[in-house]
């Protein structure tokens, strides 16, 4: 039997009728049209599906959609404000931290969660925060440099 799910996605209050066994990733991509978050492994090991739930980076492939009832979800689409990319997105572009782009939405969300909590992360903190986002292409160095360029000394 379908259930009603109410949630906020990227500052928009939405509701949708879904079967209880659907994941947040399925609902975002297939019901609500937010195709930014990707499925890599579907099993928690790659981070391509990372979105923020109430500000925390979570794997939407392992989150039951009904578990985010009443919560606030931010996907990579939600980072664009007034047509302008978020500083994290801009830094990824400027540093060449994107090749095929499949891991990018997840990596960007992990970086965003880190910087919201810690405006001046060390290299080690950046590496740890992004260790759950596998990238087949870049070799990570440029991703780490992109995020490092946003660290603001206090």
């Amino acid at each position: 039997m379908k259930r009603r799910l109410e949630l906020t996605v990227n500052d928009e209050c939405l509701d949708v009728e879904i079967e209880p066994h659907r994941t947040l990733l399925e609902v975002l991509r297939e019901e609500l049209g937010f195709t930014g978050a990707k499925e890599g492994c579907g099993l928690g090991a790659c981070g391509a599906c990372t979105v923020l739930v109430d500000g925390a980076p979570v794997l939407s492939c392992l989150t039951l959609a009904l578990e985010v009832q009443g919560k606030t979800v931010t996907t990579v689409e939600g980072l664009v404000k007034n047509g302008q990319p978020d500083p994290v997105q801009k830094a990824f572009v400027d540093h060449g931290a994107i090749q095929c782009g499949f891991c990018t939405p997840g990596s960007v969300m992990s970086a965003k969660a880190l910087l919201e909590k810690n405006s001046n992360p060390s290299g080690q903190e950046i590496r740890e925060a992004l260790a759950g986002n596998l990238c087949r292409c870049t070799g990570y160095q440029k991703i780490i440099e992109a995020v490092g360029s946003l660290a603001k000394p206090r």
Partner: protein
Amino acid sequence: MMRLPKMDYAAPPTLSEVCVLMSEQQEKAELLAGGTDLLPACKLRNKQPTLLVSLGKIPSLKDIRFDESEGLRIGAMTSLNALRYDPLAIAHYPALIEAAAAVGTTQLQHMGTLGGNICLDTRCTYYNQSESWRQTRAVCLKMGGEVCHVVPKGNKCYAVFSGDMAPVLLALDARLKLASSAGERSLRLSEFYSGDGRKPLLIRPGEILEAVIVPPPAGKESSAYLKYRVRGAIDFPLAGVAVRLAATADGLCRDCSVAITAVSSAPVQVPEAADLLKGKSVTAELINKAAQETSRAAHPVANAFGATPSYRRKMIGILTRRTLTSLAQNLGMAVR
């Protein structure tokens, strides 16, 4: 898209309602905490519950409290990330922080709970696979069949317990508080594991883990956890060692506790190693002996990717030596 089987879902707002629901449903229902162990198992069709009962709507299960006499009480739904940055845990139990920080990735630490980590299912290279992969072989004991592909001559399942928190909680002598519609009970964590890979927990049908209680540190003591895994960024342990060490005023070992994980179907304490040190001056020679004893207590089999059983067993000894040496130095005990 890798999809979950059809299941119903309930999220009762109180623990007593969860207890009632679980007692009515028994085996057909599974408790859902962070879902990071259960949902992959459902996707791979290792488990096919008809109902998921979420613990996510019960705020009291996320409480962390410290009391000088009881110690630290951690609600089962506390996320590993919340525990990792909890000032009370940081102040009193360094090994808890080290273990929480070593679990999976940042995302998994935000989602994964302490309760789910303690109740983790055992793992095996022949079990944590898709249905179509498993169909190429006879159904093994853990999936309800009659054979084991790892130890074909045995009639036991050797799937390995691979949680990082349990060894630390064993070394700290933690207790569990369990709730069910029949009432509450409390038991030591060491009494919670069966050692049977097929059904690793001695939890009763319908029971819910409510909280974990870690006794207060007594005097000069500290704890440490070290883990061996393939990729530092994400993997389950292939061997893990937790140690609690306490010193007397004149620098002897007052008390010691050693526990290991990921080398058998249950995390276990190794009293044979800890007893070697009690009341003694902690020398390098004694530490080596304790490391040998700990390694002897490890019984890994060939059912995890990344290292051979003999290498994992050797690593148990090495990690024991490292944890004991660094703890003894931190506590100002002479290590000669």
